[in-house]
Each structure stands twice: as structure tokens, then as C-alpha cells.
């Protein structure tokens, strides 16, 4: 029996099929979830994928956060369901207050697409155990609203608790405070980041690196050994 990992499609989601492919490549079973259904189909984990849900017209993730599917998701995430938010998914998680802080427009005011170097700061979350702490990886980044902000108190708390999961290395692509690329909740089951691990799982595609695959193998291991 393998793990079943849900991928939510909102109107305007873009990387849903790509994320399903990454889950499949890692050896788990992707399960399509629909934003209008208050039903998580008993999946073992959920990925909120990248895109421009509802056009990101109000604020990135602000409208999707009120979708029916988010009701059970918020409840179950609080109860320990592993949830990974990638890019728009990260934005939705902050809007839903499952993760602290907020995402704002890139400080240079442009969309940015690049192969981004990151450091894995926390290799103990549900989604990062196949990395080692301090490991440097390259993951494609592509977004308009990638600037992570939170007040100093929150930032200090995140740092103190080791909840900064990923940091930008060499180049901060969007003005995120303290070079934060991704964070986790206290329990380590909810993780959000701006770069796209699902686009770094095949050696021929994109940047040609597979540095993103451990996200999906980490969760798979956790779920099958659980």
C-alpha cells in the first residue's frame, strides 16, 4: 500500500498536473481534489500547488482561502494532516493563518523566474526528512508575490523555534525578510515555500536538476512507515 497524496485544483491553479506527476515519480499515488468539494477523500497528505488561484486578483491566495475544500483542510491540518503549500499554496496557507506572516509583491515589482539556490534549515518537517540540515539545493522559483513578511516578534519566534525551513542563498529574489523562502508550523506537518520542488524532479526537464524530489520521498517515507 502506498500513500495517497491529494492535490487541490482551484480555478486558476497551474501546477496541479505537474505536482501529481512529481508525486507519481516519487512513488506515491496522487489524488485530485476539487476546490468546491468539502471532501479530502481520506488522503494521507495534501499539496496546495502553484498558480494564480482566482487570478490572485485581491491578494495572492486570498480568495482561494475561502473555498469549500479549505474547511476540512484547515481543521485537519491543525490536527496533524501533512500539508505542503508551494508558491500560491504557501500564499493560501498564510491567508488561512495556518502559517504566520504574509506574502507581498516582489520588491523589484516584476515577476521572476530563475533557478534559485536555497538552504534547507529544517530537515525534520514531514516534507524535508530526506534532506540534511544545512544542505544547499537548487529549485526553480517563479512568482510575482514572493516577498515574505511578518513582524519582528513573529520572525524572532520562527528563528528561535527552528521554523524557518528554507532560506535563499546568494541572492534574495524578492525582498523576503531574513531571506526566508519557506517556513513550517510548530508541529512540522504544515510547510510552505515559494520555490517549486515539483519542477525539479526529472533530469531532462526544466533546470535538469532533481533537487526537489526529496520533498515527495520524505512525505512518502513518513506515511508508509507511520
Amino acid at each position, binding site marked *: 500500500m502506498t500513500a495517497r497524496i491529494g492535490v487541490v485544483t482551484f480555478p*486558476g491553479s497551474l501546477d496541479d498536473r505537474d505536482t501529481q506527476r512529481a508525486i507519481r515519480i516519487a512513488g506515491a499515488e496522487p489524488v485530485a481534489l476539487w476546490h468546491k468539494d468539502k471532501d479530502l477523500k481520506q488522503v494521507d497528505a495534501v499539496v496546495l500547488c502553484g498558480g494564480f488561484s482566482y487570478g490572485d486578483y485581491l491578494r495572492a491566495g486570498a480568495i482561494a482561502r475561502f473555498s469549500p475544500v479549505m474547511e476540512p483542510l484547515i481543521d485537519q491540518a491543525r490536527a496533524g494532516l501533512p500539508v505542503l503549500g508551494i508558491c500560491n499554496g504557501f500564499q493560501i496557507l498564510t491567508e488561512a493563518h495556518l502559517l504566520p506572516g504574509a506574502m507581498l509583491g516582489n520588491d523589484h515589482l516584476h*515577476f521572476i523566474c530563475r533557478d534559485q539556490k536555497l538552504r534547507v534549515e529544517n530537515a525534520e518537517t514531514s516534507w524535508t526528512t530526506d534532506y540534511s540540515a544545512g544542505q544547499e539545493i537548487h529549485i526553480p522559483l*517563479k512568482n510575482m508575490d514572493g516577498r515574505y513578511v511578518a513582524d519582528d516578534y513573529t520572525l524572532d519566534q520562527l528563528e528561535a523555534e527552528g521554523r524557518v525551513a528554507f532560506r535563499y542563498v546568494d541572492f534574495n529574489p524578492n525582498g523576503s525578510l531574513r531571506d526566508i523562502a519557506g517556513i513550517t508550523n510548530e508541529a512540522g506537518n504544515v510547510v510552505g515555500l515559494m520555490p517549486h520542488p515539483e519542477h525539479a524532479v526529472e533530469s531532462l526537464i526544466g533546470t535538469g536538476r532533481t533537487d526537489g524530489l526529496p520533498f515527495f520521498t520524505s512525505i512518502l517515507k513518513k506515511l508508509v512507515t507511520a
Partner: protein
Amino acid sequence: MSRTPLDTVEHAAATPDVELPWAELGLKKDEYERVVEILGRRPTGAELAMYSVMWSEHCSYKSSKVHLRQFGEKAPQSDALLVGIGENAGVVDVGQGYAVTFKVESHNHPSYVEPYQGAATGVGGIVRDIIAMGARPVAVVDPLRFGAADHPDTKRVLPGVVAGIGGYGNCLGLPNIGGEVVFDACYQGNPLVNAGAIGVMRHEDIHLAKASGAGNKVILYGARTGGDGIGGASILASETFDDAKPSKRPAVQVGDPFQEKLLIECTLEAFAEKLVVGIQDLGAAGLSCATSELASNGSGGMRVTLDDVPLRDSTLSPEEILMSESQERMCAVVEPDKVERFLEICDKWDVIATVIGEVTDGDRLEIFWHGGKIVDVDPRTVAHDGPVYERPYARPDWQDALQADDAGKLPRPATSEELRDQVLKLVASPNQASKKWITSQYDHFVQGNTVLAQPEDSGMIRVDEESGLGVAIATDGNGRYAKLDPYTGAQLALAEAYRNVATTGAKPLAVSDCLNFGSPEDPAVMWQFAEAVRGLADGCLQLGTPVTGGNVSLYNQTGEAAIHPTPVVAVLGVIDDVARRTPVAFQEEGQLIYLLGDTREEFGGSAWSQVVHDHLGGLPPRVDLERERLLAEILISASRDGMIDSAHDLSDGGLVQAVVESALLGGKGARLIVPDGLDAFTLLFSESAGRAIVAVPRSEEVRFNDMCGARGLPATRIGVVDGDTVEIQGEFTLTLAELREAHENTIPSLLA
């Protein structure tokens, strides 16, 4: 507001003397008389609206048609061609049951007026063409041309255009995998914003724009209809035709990429369930175009109730509704028993969908408003029987002097020092500089199938995950070459795009084009156009790559000054296994650099002549399409059999530009030796066509040489991948750091 009484067909018949504002709507007197003759009475206001937009230059190709016919007449025999010119986009067989559709279009003028929205809606329009063929869009490309890089208005237009293309394409989830950015003062005031898209489908999913089967329903779905882009039609909305006051209708259309993303998904879902008989996107001329084309391409007639069109602005008149160019709308023909399911799918995706009419067994297009019949026409006369002009054309009298002003006579660098400085100047010039500042605003990764994207020679997308089947696309154009000789210039654009596709290891299959020219009413421009089309058609015949569709953009001129004739050519290719693709970047030190093809003293229209001497004159490089074909075969075989690890085609900027790009991308330098029979200057800067550089692993050298020798392609070993400098032995050495600084800082410092 509608007039009283409503200008119905009966009313028109009964009031033959009413004067209609045909001139204001852009019709010529004889065109209007032709409408009256077709109908046997004066047209109603609504009919006039339809004829006037459908017979416009943009929709009817009235100036270009007589020339474009050559693409059909000279079309090469090609087994790959599934759908040719005339549909929304051409379709090509790429094997394994897959078909690919692609097309390039212009959105030049709107992008000058409102760069962001103009460019954004350009992407939206071309993507709808792709969906309308039944395909899932998989990538976009954007050939762009602007005024001088340091002109203040370029700083307004370029960032807006780039943000608009990115804003729309990124939000749709389409990777941007290629394009061009060219600066030239001739585009000041007339920037060229061309956008191309590719879609993939299974053979059985190909859909066409035709309405057949009496009783089938016509469904309009997508955005509500507003007063966008109506222009002249507002005259028809006034109380009486003679008391025409301009009404407040926006000339600029605002795009909603989110809505279009929903259109893509719900359309593909409807296709998958086989719910669609015929389909048409709404672009220029909106409903006028969609209804008349659907009806005229099908077997029956069509009856439409305009009152059922969902409106964003309730004050629109029927004429305005017919002409509105509101974005993000599609029109589908669906069998009655499938309508419910179709509407369910639209509802699932929150897309508004409304039955607005049905296919009839007559042969008329009839449109009703408030119970009255306001249109009753033979749809073919609207869609296909527009005027055709044989516009006069003549080789301009300045052409000889231009060609006589030979670039070969320009002073060349006298010392190694000067040569080195000119190399730096060239790679830093806006046209040759890195476009990363622009292309990093585009998503290249979305959909997870991007094998190659900019700055590679062509973009490449994986089509099948199992087999590795992929498609490649490159777009090229060179207005400077075309100005010197439009026939050759068009062939050089074709040759370059063809070569770019082959350089990445893909086999070129088919062509789309976007022909950007000045006013067809100027015989000199018309000659450039005629020559370019002739050159392209002849070239495609010789290379065996049919033109599958394209777009013509005329009147790109300010006053008397036309842009350079700018045919932009897109070539689509196929590769059996994307694992065999060849990248631009040098991969490994020690690999041998070979120059393929012949290098002659050819500097007419070259980047060197522009950058160093601000000169345009002489003849463009010679074209030898047989040589291009041979070069392509060698590049493809070498990639398939693993004989080369990187390759880069040579075009504007010549060899030195290519070597510098391969070196910077790979982070590995090169040591070059000037071969016998050439001088360093010519080796570095000549723009002879039909050439590429390749990096050959030492273990493959014999095999590679044997292949080139056996097939008669000149292959000259010119150096080796090595170190962190680019060195021309006996001349100069430049570090990669220096080169990178020169190459990468130009655009940001001009625009950021």
C-alpha cells in the same frame, strides 16, 4: 440605445434612401455598393456593422490575399500537414498519434497605445486560436521589436509589453520558451508585438470552425460582452445615422487571463467528452466573425438571437454587440442532447455559457433583436467574399543606391586591440546583449515539460512522457536584411528559424509567419511585401516545410516612414526523444569546437555594421537552402548519435557572438585559431548563413568528421573548449567575467 423604428431587414427594404455611414466605418464606396448589390437592398445598420469589420484589412486580408495565395500554390508535398492555411491555426502530425498546432499573430498597434493590455490581449488571442483547434496550449513565444534602446519611449513601451506578456502567459500557465527582442529606430512609434502559441492534441481531437447539423445549438461562453474595441460602430449606435455623436466606448481591451484559463479548462473538458461539433474563438470582429465564419464553413445556415448575449454593459446596441471585441469569449456548436452537459461543464468552471442560436437547414445567417430580424445575409459573402485588391507595387527607386552602399567597404579594425574592443562593443550592444532581464519575467517551467527555453536556439517541449517525443519552435526575423533585399531577407528569416530548430536536434516540419510591414497603399511597401511573400513561399517549397498559417500586420508606419519590412518566421520541429536534445552551452573542457559551413566576407545588414558604423547598406548574406538542409541533417544526426554535446547556430553577430554565448552559458571558455584562408575579422563578424558551431567530444571526432566529409559539409576545427577566457590566438584574450559584464548589464541598465 436602439433606434426607433428598429432598423430591421424589412425596414431597410422599405427605406432604400436612408444614408448609412459606410465611410466612417472604413468601407470604400465601391465596397458599400457591392454590399448593396449582394443584398439586393441597402444593408441594415447591423449588416453594415458586420460587413465593415469583416471586410477590413485586418479580417479580410484584402491587400495581402493575392500574394498569400502562393503559400498554398507553392506548398511542398508534406505528409505531416493535417490542417493547412485557412483554419484558426495549422495542424501538423508529429507522430505517435500526436498532432501539434501553432501560430504567430501580431498585436502591434494596441501595444503601442497601452503596452501592458495590448501585449496581454495579444497572448490571449493567439492562445484562443490554439484552443479552438482542439488542442491544449503548451507554450508561447514572443518575437518583439522596439524603437532605439535608449529612446525614452522605449522605456515606457518595453517594460509594459513584457509585463503584459508575462502577466497573461504566466497566469495562464503557459511556459514562454522563446522569442526575440530587437531594437531599431525604425520601430519607434510602431513597436512590433508578435505572439505565438503551440498546442498539442491527439489526431482524433482536431476541431474545426464550422457549424453543421440543423438544430444544433450555438453556445456563446466566457466573458460577458462589453463595449470593447468597437471604434467606429458607435456611430451606428447613435439615434440617427446622420446625427452621429461618438459614444463612450473603450478603444483598449483589458484582458482577464484568469477567465481565459477557465476557458481553456472547460473547453478541453468539453472536447474530451466529445460534446463539440464546431468551435470558433472570438477575436477581431467578435461575434460578427464567429457567427459568419461558423455558418459559412458549415453545411447549413444559422439563426442567432442577440438578446441572449450576456452583456457587461446593458446600453450596447445590436451593432455594437456584433462588433464588440471583448476578450475571453468562445462560440461552440453543440448537438441539442449534449447542451445540458456542455452547460454543466461551463458551470463547473464558473464560466458563463448561453445558447444564443441554432444551426438551420437554410443557407442564411439570420440575427434577431427585440423580435425583429436585423441581419439576413449569406454568411459566405461576409466571411469569404470580401474585396480583393491588386495593389500596385514597384521596386523603390532608393533600393539600388541602398544595395550599392556596400558594407564591405566600411573600415575594419586595424589592430588586435581594436578588434577586441569591437567584440566587447558588439556583445554589449542592445540587440546582441543578454535578454535575461526580459525573459526572467516569464515562467519557463510551468507544465513540467520544458526541455529547452531561452536562451537556447529553440524552445523545446516534451509531448509524451513515456517515449520522450518532443516539439521545438524557433522564431526569427531580420528587418535589416529584409530592407536590403526583401526576397532574400524573408528566406534568411526562414533559414535561421529552420537552423535554430535543427541546432537543438529537432527536425523542422512546418512554418507559421507574421508579416509586419508599412502601408500597402505605398507601392514601395507593397513591393517589399510581395517580394517577402515570394521569397518565403519559394523557400518553404525548397525546404519542404509548408506554411500552415500566419498573420499580416500592415500600416506599421508613422507618416511617410514605414518600418523595415519585417517578416517573422516561426519554424516548428519534432524530436523523437528529447533526451537527445543539444544545448547551446559548452559542456566540457577539452571538447573540440568545429565551425560548420562556409564563411564569406558578408557584412551587409550585419550587427557589426550597425554597432560599429551605424550603417545599413549593401546586400544581405547569400542564401543557400540546400546547404541549410544539409546542415540541419548533420546537426540532427549528430545529436541523435551522440556525436556532439553542444551546438549553436550563427546568425546576427556572427561567430564571436555565438562563441561568447556558448561560453557564458556553460561557464567554460574557448581557445580559437583562425583557420587558413580567413582573417580574424571575417571569422569573427561575418554573418554568412548556413553555419553553426558544435562542440565534439574527442572520442567522437573521427566519426563526426567522417560524417561531414561523406555528406560534403565543410567542417573546420577552429578551437577547443578551455579555461575561463575567450582567446583568439594571436589576437586577444577576454575573460568570461569581462564578457559577462558587457553582455549582461546592458539591458538592465537601460530599462531597470
